[in-house]
């Protein structure tokens, strides 16, 4: 059974703290993603990575950074947490199939509250 595991389901952090969200996948996928999910806005891409040590900005990268030192692990870093970063964060991984189809597998999400 394929699995994307996010290290925490719920987190409460203080404004200004450095926050690490961890994600691990066991499917040997090349691509990994971080999204944030907000009501009425759907899923917005923060960063993605298509290989170890490679990263690309998504649509809303400001205030975030990422790290991918190993293929199976993709970390999202909030350098200095702010209240507007209170959200649900979703990690996903994907790999291209031979037929050109693909599927993004999601973790269960981390609900982060910044106070």
């Amino acid at each position, binding site marked *: 059974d394929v699995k994307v595991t996010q290290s925490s389901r719920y987190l409460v952090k203080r404004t200004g703290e450095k926050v690490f969200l961890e994600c691990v996948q066991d499917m040997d996928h090349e*691509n990994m993603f971080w999204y944030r999910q907000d009501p*009425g806005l759907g899923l917005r*891409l923060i960063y*993605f990575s298509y290989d170890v040590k490679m990263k690309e900005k998504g649509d809303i990268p400001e205030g975030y950074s990422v790290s991918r030192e190993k293929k199976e692990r993709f970390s999202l870093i909030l350098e200095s947490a702010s209240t507007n970063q209170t959200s649900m964060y979703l990690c996903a991984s994907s790999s291209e199939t031979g037929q*050109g189809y693909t*599927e993004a597998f999601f973790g269960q*999400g981390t609900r982060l509250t910044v106070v």
Partner: protein
Amino acid sequence: QQQVKQSPQSLIVQKGGISIINCAYENTAFDYFPWYQQFPGKGPALLIAIRPDVSEKKEGRFTISFNKSAKQFSLHIMDSQPGDSATYFCAARQNNFNKFYFGSGTKLNVKP
């Protein structure tokens, strides 16, 4: 700016009815259009997907209709059941990047 526009934001359907969710896009570099289903407390999971060289794809009670010229696609859920109550997201993948753009989501409530 939302790359994929989804409507309606919420939908209430009686059991046995048809649920229809619509999406539209502008970027012609999109080459793959999946739909995801999300239950409360869970991450989204792939429901059904279509490529633009096909106008319709059906899997059980779920059908995607795709209109390439209009840049629109829709999800139809036939014989809707209370167990279908979830949030549905359409998405589009930008080719060569395996990068997904998601719609804003539709919360479906199927009443018994």
